[in-house]
């Protein structure tokens, strides 16, 4: 063999190897002739379908928080690898995969156990009514359920102007499955989310991948399965058995939102900026809106708020009339002025415009009451 | 034993070896001469398959090279541009490793062959110290020992006496002559004329990549037909041999004549006291110098 032939062999090997990872994607995705409304129904029917697999999520929301918000900042502003076994809404397990261990959520009925390998600790707590986002919320099916709530599947002529409209996108191969594309265009002028693209499994309706877009052309949050299985996971795998010697401690309060919801002496009004309250009335925290237009109002004690004010200020928040306002992509974060006499401040955050946040702040100043 | 035709090698645009046709017969000691940089080493490397010829063919022991290297090379012992060994290992360990690498080295006889080879090159008493601590001469001897391990039919040696003292050179010369008597063909590349002159049957001379001479030593040193006449009676001799004297060097005349006996009688009868009458022979040095141009490592002002 002459040298030129040998190098030709090497070049052939190179091309083959370089193409190998693309081979799986090269299989054309098989589309189904479903209208947007039919696909939306399929997706909604798939909310209870079991599945398992691995997920890669990537957020571009640079949250200014550290210390007790670290998890949240990582969740929305970085890469997250998840592994999930979903037997149903009441029985699932989600692992956050780390290079040095993992943090696992085991969910049964109303109780969630968090196991942290590196801290060697397990904490058990009831599922609160209000909480900050956690790992399981990044799963494409969970994220989709959150954003599709209230979406209208009809042809668009009948729906009211504020409702979001769905349309079809082409099919895509995701984790070896055919993903049928659906676009949710957000028409509500209060929302800071422009549109949401998602791809649902053609047979089960489980959402395989989801991209959330703010103002720009790059998604601010993406989440997609890297491997997917629609078989029901075994009973065994979602069950947490505490290792010998590890005490499972009970955590009645999951996070500061949960704490504020249960114990803050304030309660926000029933509507804010025209958005209806979606959680129980009379509680400390108010959650408003639905689908891609959501807003939450959390009362903070002044010493907690002061720490947050510093962080917001250091991240370049605009300060006006005692209000701090920061925008991280479509996520707006506002800390309102101090309310006497309890010296509480409201943390307002959500996927809404600055204007909506200011209207909400005004609404809080007028409408919040003591309980 | 070795036959090349039109052997040519380019390194980039430089022609290192140009159309070389070597002929080495079985059983002979062939001296491969040439100044440094004349392409000797490249030719040797081509014979052994280390450097691949740009064009031309090589045949060794009747097989084409380098295509049939697996059959040919086990019967060849070679020393290319100085010896080399794994510095951290002892001489014996080196011989053992190299023997185990390729075909033709039986494991059962290995240690016996190592001892024999070391004995032959005068390293029989060497201890376990690593080659790193060897002198240049010892390394050269070890390299020679490596070539002898498998009783090769052909030895290709590049400057085998390099780094040896006069005693060592003598020993190596005796060793090579003995091996040759026992039937080993030897291809000896050297720039030392004296070494070649003392050992070789035939010589090839390489100059700037071209084989400018390939002849038997006997042929080269054949009498030239001229005679050296030494006498105290220079003037008388010259008068007697008018027209036949080419040159006078002190009390020695260089004379053209067909028959030494007739020349002697002529001189003696003419009353010239001849102290010596010897035939003129060309030396290898003269032939080589005549055949080659300037040394290539000499740089002349243009």
């Amino acid at each position, binding site marked *: 063999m002459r040298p030129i032939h040998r190098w030709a062999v090497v070049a052939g090997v190179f091309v083959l190897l370089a193409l190998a990872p693309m081979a799986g994607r090269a299989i054309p995705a098989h589309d189904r002739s479903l209208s947007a409304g039919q696909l939306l129904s399929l997706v909604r029917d798939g909310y209870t379908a079991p599945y398992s697999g691995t997920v890669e999520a990537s957020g571009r929301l640079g949250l200014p928080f550290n210390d007790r918000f670290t998890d949240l900042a990582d969740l929305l502003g970085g890469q997250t690898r998840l592994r999930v076994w979903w037997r149903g809404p009441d029985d699932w397990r989600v692992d956050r995969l780390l290079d*040095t261990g993992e943090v696992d959520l085991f969910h049964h009925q109303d109780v969630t156990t968090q196991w942290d390998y590196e801290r060697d600790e397990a904490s058990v707590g009831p599922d609160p009514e209000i909480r900050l986002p956690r790992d399981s919320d990044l799963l494409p099916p969970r994220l989709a359920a959150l954003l599709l709530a209230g979406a209208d599947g009809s042809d668009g002529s009948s729906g009211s102007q504020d409702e979001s409209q769905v349309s079809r996108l082409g099919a895509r191969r995701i984790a070896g499955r055919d993903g049928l594309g659906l676009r949710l265009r957000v028409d509500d002028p209060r929302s800071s989310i422009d549109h949401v693209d998602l791809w649902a499994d053609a047979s089960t309706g489980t959402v395989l991948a989801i991209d959330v877009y703010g103002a720009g052309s790059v998604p601010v949050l993406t989440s997609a399965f890297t491997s997917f299985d629609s078989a029901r996971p075994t009973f065994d795998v979602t069950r947490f058995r505490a290792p010998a010697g590890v005490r499972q401690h009970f955590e009645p309060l999951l996070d500061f939102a949960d704490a504020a919801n249960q114990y803050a002496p304030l309660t926000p009004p029933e509507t804010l900026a025209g958005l209806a309250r979606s959680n129980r009335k009379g509680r400390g925290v108010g959650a408003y809106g639905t689908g891609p237009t959501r807003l939450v109002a959390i009362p903070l004690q002044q010493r907690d708020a002061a720490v947050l004010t510093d962080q917001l200020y250091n991240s370049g928040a605009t300060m006006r009339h005692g209000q701090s306002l920061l925008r991280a992509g479509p996520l707006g974060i506002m800390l309102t002025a101090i309310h006497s006499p309890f010296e509480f401040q409201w943390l307002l955050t959500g996927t809404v415009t600055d204007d909506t946040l200011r209207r909400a702040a005004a609404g809080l100043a007028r409408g919040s009451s003591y309980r | 034993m070795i036959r090349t035709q039109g052997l040519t090698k380019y390194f980039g645009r430089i022609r290192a070896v140009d159309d070389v046709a070597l002929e080495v017969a079985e059983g002979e000691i062939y001296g491969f001469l040439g100044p440094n940089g004349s392409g000797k080493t490249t030719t040797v490397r081509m014979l052994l398959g280390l450097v691949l010829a740009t064009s031309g063919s090589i045949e060794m022991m009747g097989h084409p090279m380098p295509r049939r290297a697996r059959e040919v090379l086990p019967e060849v012992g070679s020393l290319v*541009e100085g010896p080399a060994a794994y*510095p951290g290992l002892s001489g014996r360990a080196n011989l053992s490793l190299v023997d185990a690498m390729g075909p033709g080295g039986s494991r059962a006889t290995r240690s016996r062959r190592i001892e024999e080879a070391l004995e032959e090159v005068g390293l029989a008493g060497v201890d376990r110290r690593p080659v790193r601590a060897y002198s240049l001469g010892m390394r050269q001897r070890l390299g020679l020992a490596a070539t002898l391990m498998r009783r090769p039919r052909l030895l290709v040696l590049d400057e085998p006496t390099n780094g040896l003292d006069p005693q060592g050179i003598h020993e190596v010369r005796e060793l090579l002559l003995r091996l040759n008597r026992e039937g080993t063909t030897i291809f000896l590349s050297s720039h030392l004329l004296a070494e070649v002159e003392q050992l070789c049957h035939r010589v090839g001379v390489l100059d700037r990549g071209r084989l400018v001479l390939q002849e038997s030593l006997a042929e080269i040193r054949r009498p030239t037909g001229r005679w050296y006449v030494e006498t105290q009676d220079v003037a008388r001799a010259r008068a007697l041999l008018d027209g036949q004297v080419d040159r006078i060097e002190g009390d020695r005349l260089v004379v053209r004549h067909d028959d030494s006996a007739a020349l002697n009688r002529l001189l003696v009868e003419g009353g010239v006291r001849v102290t010596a009458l010897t035939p003129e022979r060309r030396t290898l040095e003269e032939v080589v110098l005549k055949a080659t141009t300037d040394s290539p490592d000499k740089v002349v002002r243009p």
Partner: protein
Amino acid sequence: MIAVELTKMLRSRRSWVTIAVIDALPILVAVLLAVTDIGPRPGTGPAFLSAVLTKGELYPLAAVAIVLPLFLPAAVAITAGDAVAGEAQQGTLRYVLVRPVGRTRLLVAKLVSVTAFVLVTLLVVAVTGLVLGVLLLGDSNSATPTTTFSGTDLTTTQLAQRTGLALAYALLSMLGVAAVALFLSTVVRTPLAAAMGTLALLIGSTLLLTLDAAHALRPYLVTRYWLSFVDLFRDPILWHDVVLGVLLQAGYVVLFLAAAWANFMTKDITD
């Protein structure tokens, strides 16, 4: 030829000095941990290191995680980079080839020898890790069994099996580096240049992994799946990246061994 290369590697003092240097780091870390009793904060430092203070038998894995990102690949780059260029520089290459040893056989034997070197290194690191872990680290008072990342108990046998798998994976992870260094070793004249070239590739790969803009290149980066051996300690074992890692390394070996072969087969040996 393979046997000869193995003998050379095992008898070379340099191999053992290199192994000792690599082993020194986990030894130092173990001693520091034992003396200070300060583990790394969760999420920082190499895998398993935060757990070894209570579970000493995990230290072989922590030791492997310590040497895997830099020390081991650097040693592989140097060893494999020396394979052909070093012999050429030393002058022994020509005597090996005229012995004769087939050029392809020589390349394969060199790769096998480097693999054996990595294996010996990993075994030394693991065994010293185990000895140190049991003697210096661990909390003998707590009867806590070793667990997977997911919190399920591991029996000693299971732990030994998974540690063995992790060592095998670490060994395979080094093959890509070895093949690249071997290829460069047939190209450049000095072993140092081959080692430097390989290290440049490693550093480049590590850097590109952190760069979002290089996302399309990630599946091809040689260091991409190196740390995936930790996936063997999840329950159930997460094979996805481990399998991809093995395939990636196999791809590197095939490509660069082929390139080394293409280059070396007709290379003029003029050293």
